[in-house]
């Protein structure tokens, strides 16, 4: 198993290089550039000062040289410095943003599993029941409504009309003066709406997926065998059916990493959450090349890691793959 993991990790290196190359080229194909953002509308900026800036950032070199330089720096895990006025190291910027994005995503992921799996299992076991039909309508409604639009509606309702929840950011102005418990409560207060919304959006897919798997498994011969043994229905469902039905969910979990990172871009922008997604958005808008490349590389790495973890997790859970 260890050998397998090492082999997969080594195999991930060329994939990462490939992803970074494509990202790099696409980024440079996009109109505009980091220099233009600061100089285009500035009457004092001369052609000479622009050229100087270009040379300073190395943007006057041909693309392959630029990419080569970036790759060489990356190989020593140096992400470079941001083009933004603060000029801080990209690694540092990413590091301070990651925990927030991760917290929100892990919480909403947990919420999805906590709700979607029981709903899916119960719908499958009682297929065609009132509960099944109501939950089907509910999750499809959730699936059909664009999350960003629903977010705005809920912000108006809970934030503006009712004034129950803050509508942006992750902490209040007096956050610094609060005690540890107060800090926790304040954070929870701010994250409630984003986490619930993010979870609501993902609920449909996961619960339908669980339901479909469960229906598939319940028809299997070994479930009939379990019943023929005289096992009570509960044991048949939980011990024999559910275990098999949830195996593919492990894969889904691993594959959802890029989705989470991608979704965070829109989501964090709406809620003004200072996470990785928002940073990426800002980076793209100001053509901050080192920052964009840094986040894309981290994202690609996390995606590959997620796939690997999913495969390892699946192998641990399913004896057929473990020994096969």
């Amino acid at each position: 198993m260890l050998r397998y993991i090492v082999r997969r990790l080594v195999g991930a290196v060329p994939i990462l290089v490939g992803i970074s190359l494509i990202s790099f080229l696409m980024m440079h194909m996009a109109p505009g550039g980091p220099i233009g953002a600061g100089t285009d509308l500035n009457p004092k900026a001369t052609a000479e000062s622009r050229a100087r800036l270009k040379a300073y950032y190395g943007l006057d070199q041909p693309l392959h040289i630029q990419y080569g330089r970036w790759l060489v720096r990356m190989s020593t895990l140096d992400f470079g410095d941001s083009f933004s006025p603060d000029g801080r190291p990209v690694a540092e910027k990413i590091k301070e943003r990651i925990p927030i994005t991760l917290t929100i995503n892990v919480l909403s992921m947990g919420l999805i599993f906590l709700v979607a799996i029981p709903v899916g299992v119960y719908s499958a076991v009682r297929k065609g029941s009132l509960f099944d039909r109501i939950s089907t309508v509910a999750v499809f409604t959730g699936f059909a409504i664009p999350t960003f639009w629903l977010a705005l509606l809920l912000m108006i309702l809970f934030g503006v009309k009712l004034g129950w929840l803050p509508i942006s950011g992750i902490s209040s102005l007096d956050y610094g003066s609060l005690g540890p418990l107060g800090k926790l409560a304040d954070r929870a207060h701010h994250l409630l709406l984003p986490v619930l919304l993010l979870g609501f959006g993902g609920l449909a897919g996961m619960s339908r997926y669980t339901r479909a798997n469960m229906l598939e498994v319940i028809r299997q011969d070994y479930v009939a065998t379990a019943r023929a043994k005289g096992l009570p229905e509960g044991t048949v469902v939980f011990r024999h059916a559910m275990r098999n039905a949830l195996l593919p969910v492990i894969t889904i979990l691993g594959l959802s990493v890029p989705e989470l990172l991608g979704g965070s871009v829109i989501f964090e922008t709406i809620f003004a959450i200072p996470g990785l997604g928002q940073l990426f958005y800002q980076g793209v808008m100001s053509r901050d090349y080192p920052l964009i490349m840094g986040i894309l590389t981290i994202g690609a790495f996390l995606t590959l890691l997620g796939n690997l973890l999913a495969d390892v997790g699946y192998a641990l859970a399913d004896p057929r793959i473990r020994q096969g």
Partner: protein
Amino acid sequence: MAETLLDVRGLRLSFATEKGSVRALFGVSFSVAPGETVGLVGESGCGKTVTALAVLRLLQSPPAIVESGEIVFRGEDLLALPEKRMCGVRGKSISMIFQEPMSSLNPVLTVGEQVAEVFTAHNVCGKREAAERAVEWLRKVHMPDPSLRAREYPHQMSGGMRQRAMIAMALALTPSLLIADEPSTALDVTIQAQILSLLRELRERERMAVLLITHDLGVVHDFADRTAIMYLGRIVEIAPTRELFADPIHPYTQGLLASLPGKRTGEKRLPSIPGTVPDLSNVPPGCPFADRCPFRREALSRFLAREVPADPLAVCDREDPPLYEYSGGHFAACHHQRTVRGGGAR
């Protein structure tokens, strides 16, 4: 028969489908005595497996609906039992083994766990003892290296080994009735013979009754005390096996036996029964076999050729024949044979 273990009486069962109700069993009646082996033979879709699943109440309801009939096991109507007590019957008094050993075992549990589960489910003993007994049973079904195999998963075993594990599971609590649904069909010929001889050995040792479902006439011939032939959701003939093979009464049984290979020599093609089985959702009135029956066909052609003034077998198109008794214990559902041979009413 002095004693009956299982008595199925007039079982009518249908499935609710989107296009309305489709009847699968049209009043199936048979009985199994303690220690007796009854073969249930018929082609695919004739209702053999549905009958077996109905006895254990393993059909999902809906769509399956028992319209009428009784399934009396040791004097108790199983159809009237609450689900909880039915669980106590399944696996303990009546067990079942299925056709497909490749898919009948749970892929994520070890074989030992799956056999041991029978003991713990029926509160026979604790987990540790159940595991020991499971190994013991795997040994009894001649699983090679039983204590090692008990810790393995189904995918690590061959079809024959899996079917042995299924048999161990089914017999673990020495049930008085074993329902074996095509236990050897999915296996290759040598393994088939091994599994059947194992079943025979265990049947004798545990003195259990077996309801053997198969479409293989050779298997029932060697294995069953009595044989019932099913056609389109009915039993059309039931008799002691030896007698059924020596003197088949129903034209369907006659056709089946005639189409067995090896009976004649020199012919290139095996004889077959003309026509096809009617669709269950559109069963014509009268005898279900009338359409394909040589007696009926002959009578009709003679009538149409005006050789006879009246259609002698018009009754076949009107009435579904009940089982008439011929010599002791030999029943067949045929209007024609009743007139010719004079069977008594059942």
